[in-house]
């Protein structure tokens, strides 16, 4: 069994028209035993910047803490908000530093650039190879199901409400076909003037 499947979890992020959305399931389990149904893997790092860290839960927490530390130092030194591309480069470096003893997470980054409001999504493998596509990114134990759902459902220039429906259905249906993901979901829709956090009703099995 892969170490990334020890705790389970799934994260997906999509680009829309002047908005991005990121969604996570809420299960925390130890192999087959579900321990908590309130463990979202997406964290808000900046006003319009979110990072999802699915994988081994201990590394999720450690990497989140180290990222927060590095980001705080950056914002204090530079006296400005960090851009998503820069954040992505920082995370990639942090993960590559551990090239021969990696953190077991495959992160997803979603955000709006604070200066020109361009949407941005990025995902990485566990050693920090970045992938910045124009459409969507997926990660977690049901990534193959998520690829299938997103390829079918995503289309360009979705408005925030439409993007919410698309990303929620992609996550919920993919997680239904994975025993160790699901048990609740949270979706964040990030626009330039507001962030909407919605807890989605899912199957609890």
């Amino acid at each position: 069994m892969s170490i990334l499947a020890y705790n389970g979890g799934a994260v997906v992020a999509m680009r829309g028209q002047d908005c991005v959305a990121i969604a996570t399931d809420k299960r925390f389990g130890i192999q087959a035993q579900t321990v908590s149904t309130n463990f979202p893997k997406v964290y808000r790092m900046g006003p319009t910047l979110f990072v999802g860290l699915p994988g081994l839960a201990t590394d999720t927490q450690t990497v989140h803490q180290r990222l927060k530390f590095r980001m705080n130092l950056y914002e204090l030194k530079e006296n400005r908000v960090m851009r998503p591309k820069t954040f992505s480069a920082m995370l990639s470096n942090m993960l590559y530093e551990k090239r021969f003893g990696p953190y077991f997470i495959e992160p997803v980054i979603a955000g709006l650039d604070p200066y020109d409001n361009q949407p941005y999504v990025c995902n990485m493998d566990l050693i920090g190879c970045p992938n910045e596509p124009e459409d969507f990114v997926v990660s977690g134990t049901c990534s193959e199901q998520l690829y299938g759902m997103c390829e079918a459902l995503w289309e360009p220039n979705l408005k925030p409400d439409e993007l919410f429906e698309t990303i929620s259905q992609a996550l919920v249906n993919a997680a239904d076909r994975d025993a160790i993901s699901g048990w609740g979901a949270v979706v964040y829709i990030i626009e330039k003037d507001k962030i909407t956090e919605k807890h989605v009703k899912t199957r609890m099995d």
Partner: protein
Amino acid sequence: MASVLVPEVPAPGFSFENCQRNAFLAQKGFPAPKATKTGTTIVGIIYADGVILGADTRATENTVVSDKNCQKIHYLAGNMYCCGAGTAADTEMTTQTVASQLELQRLHTGRTVPVETAATLLKRMLFRYQGYIGAALVLGGVDRTGPHIYCIYPHGSVDKLPYATMGSGSLAAMAVFEAGWKPNMTEEEGKKLVRDAIAAGIFNDLGSGSNVDICVIRNTGPAQYLRTYEEANVKGKKQGSYRYPAGTTAVLKQRVIPLEVESVAVHPVQAMEVEPSPSRR
């Protein structure tokens, strides 16, 4: 105020902090997952006026395509680019590290850096890590001694050749080169040959796919990076729309976080006609 978790000045280079834990997990039956590889077809040729590099754009994680349009031709210097095959993070980071070393060298010496320098820096680094950094590279560039193509293998060996191919699609591409390469080709012939070699890799090798990227580095003038020289595989048009009507997804609770938006609006102002004020007597 340093701690073990976040040392104040982190030591440069790789950190082996997690190795003991990861070895323990592997021993308990949880092996580490595979990293993204680039399957890949990468090529480089020397033609009459310089070098041409080519690459496909598919990145895979086992058999799943994780990136349909990744960039495999990495910038090293104004006169040198490097295609990378193997573990994607390794090729990305290795080329970035060497690019910054080359820039320092350029500033230090005040000259264009020779292509041989890049090959030496790369091979020294890769040999030091005994092949554990899985980067197989085709380095191409032009310096004062002319155009050069180097093949650099993950264990640190270097081949200097007039035409080279690397990656899982290298056999398909090399077949095209062996049939079609000749010395002193024109730029158009060279681009066509490189395009054909990459296409051979894309259509015959499962680890390569999507589009053809080309980079032309001439003896005179800057390098020309033709990202998506040819979109060899166009995604079909979707026949249906799978949008869900609003309200399909059941929401348990919702919260809106408003954000302060600072916007600057510039209005042109007309100059006003002002009557001269009456002077006091």
